[in-house]
């Protein structure tokens, strides 16, 4: 019964797993120290040899992990290797593109491609905005009291049905130049406000797109109501120039955000062959790419609003700039970019 299995000389031989570990330990520790530098963001300080060594060390560590799982019962070792390989994996396979490179490829290709993929939703979002504008215009024409339901006081800045034609005209042209400070603060506020509305229009899309449609229609309604007030005072053409100089960009941005939200809503509502989760995350990533640029458009719109509108007072010049931004966006988004890599 009591046959001794491990006789003394045999017992002094190190375990295979022990030897395995001793032979590779130095390599793992080198990988670990390189990763420590890389993770701290100091990987520019690594030499070329070190950078080239990381993938090689990673592969040898990951094969060591496989072997260790199959042959070693040293839990501490297996856990160490799992942790080391995970960190190295993220370094080796993670995107190492810098922020600048990512932005470059985004503006050169990614954004326009994503927008092109959204053309159906874009059309729908545009029609909903138009519908909101037409309905609000008709309602305010019929009864000016509706105006206050569409345009919150904070945004109207005194431009309401009771205002005189003279006052309305003065809001369109920066004649006195005395309220300049307040105006530029107001423009900045409007920009941050619009950007948040755009982000919300996008982010609420997952609720089957319903809040997105409502926000789009409401945005159109504000526009329609404002138009109605100015047209009643025969200032329609002038308002057009005042609005469109930045409005082409701004409205396009908000419609784009709405289209991105709709895409997500549609993907959640009608996932097709994919699971709802997979469909949502695919649509979410496509739509978010389009969304990334929306904020940039809003910044441009804010600049046009803040500077362009104050410096350029002629209606025709305003229309000319509005027209050229429209052409610019049409070319930028419409230009064929080839297939996604």
């Amino acid at each position: 019964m009591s046959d001794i299995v491990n006789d003394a000389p045999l017992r002094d031989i190190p375990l295979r797993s022990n030897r395995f570990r001793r032979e590779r330990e130095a390599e793992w520790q080198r990988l670990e120290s390189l990763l420590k530098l890389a993770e701290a963001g100091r990987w520019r300080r690594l030499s070329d040899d070190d950078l080239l060594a990381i993938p090689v060390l990673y592969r040898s560590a990951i094969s060591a992990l496989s072997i260790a799982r199959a042959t070693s019962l040293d839990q501490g070792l297996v856990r160490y290797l799992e942790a080391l390989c995970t960190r190295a994996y993220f370094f080796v396979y993670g995107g190492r593109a810098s922020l600048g490179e990512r932005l470059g490829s985004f503006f050169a290709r990614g954004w326009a491609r994503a927008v092109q993929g959204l053309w159906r939703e874009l059309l729908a979002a545009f029609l909903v905005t138009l519908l909101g504008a037409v309905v609000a215009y008709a309602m305010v024409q019929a009864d000016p009291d509706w105006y206050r339901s569409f345009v919150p006081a904070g945004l109207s800045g005194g431009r309401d049905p009771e205002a005189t034609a003279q006052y309305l005209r003065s809001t369109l042209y920066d004649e006195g130049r005395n309220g300049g400070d307040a105006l530029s603060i107001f423009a900045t506020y409007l920009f941050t406000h619009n950007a948040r509305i755009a982000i919300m229009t996008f982010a609420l899309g997952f609720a089957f797109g319903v809040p997105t449609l409502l926000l789009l229609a409401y945005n159109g309604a504000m526009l329609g109501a404002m138009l109605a007030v100015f047209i009643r005072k025969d200032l329609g053409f002038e308002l057009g120039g005042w609005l469109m100089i930045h409005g082409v960009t701004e409205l396009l941005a908000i419609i784009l955000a709405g289209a991105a939200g709709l895409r997500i809503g549609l993907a959640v509502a009608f996932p097709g062959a994919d699971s709802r989760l997979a469909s949502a995350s695919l649509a979410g990533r496509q739509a978010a790419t389009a969304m990334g640029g929306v904020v940039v458009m809003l910044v441009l719109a804010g600049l046009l609003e803040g500077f362009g509108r104050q410096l350029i007072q002629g209606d025709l010049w305003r229309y000319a700039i509005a027209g050229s931004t429209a052409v610019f966006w049409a070319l930028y988004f419409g230009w064929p970019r080839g297939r996604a890599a």
Partner: protein
Amino acid sequence: MSAALNTPPRRDAGEPGRIRRFVTPEGVDLRLTLGEASERAGAFLIDLSIMVAILAAITILCWAMLAGNRFADLSLPAIIWLLSFFLLRCFYFTVFELRPSNATPGKRLMGLRVAARDGGRLGADAIFARNLVREVEIFLPITMFFAGNDPVSGWIAGAGLVWTGIFLFFPLFNRDRLRIGDLLAGTWVVKLPRRALLADLATAPAGSGPAFTTEQLRAYGVKELQVLETVLRQNREATVREVAERIRRKIDWQGESLADGEFLRAYYLALRRELEGKLLFGKRRKDKHDQ
């Protein structure tokens, strides 16, 4: 600890529920651990404090500019403040997560990072998607909450609270601890483990240690071996004594009387040698009930 040596194993016992398969292109499963809800919340609070601190600094700066009256028009400080508030709110998370570490300072401190659920590269699109949704998840209800104090605003604040509640606790109601943003972006937040390489316990002793019989080494399996490893690594006197006692009884130890720690080390080495030997022949004895 020592209870595991004695009680029959439950299904999946000892296996934390947050481990997920994650197969690298080399075909090796890295077994990622998901970030706990508490760690996520901690990371978010750290980030929020950093944002508030930055905003406070900017506010003080703007006040100083106003008070110093160095700038004739008052619009500059106001514009700086509005813009930095906006940029912080919308891009703090995005910019940090776009960096190669894919983690905000808060996540880094908590040892977390964002990863793509399908094991692929984490694209900028995914990072945009998961962080734009934050606007509705957190910041919108916060704004609602501070909306005002007439009755209607009260209702809105209440609705905002319910709304945040749904979003806030959403991660707790799914297995993978996903926010709505994670859901839309196809991402999850995983732990980035940092472990030191611990010394191998199975180094052969200088002289020949005590000898165990095959019978005595068949008492336990891999699971018990690893519990023993933990006990030895923690090296708590009371536990070591108790476990040594229990093993001596179980294997009916009649040999030389050794100190508890020494005995456990010797038994660990012998048991590991035995089990690893079997492992080489393709037999992994899971635990003591596995024949």
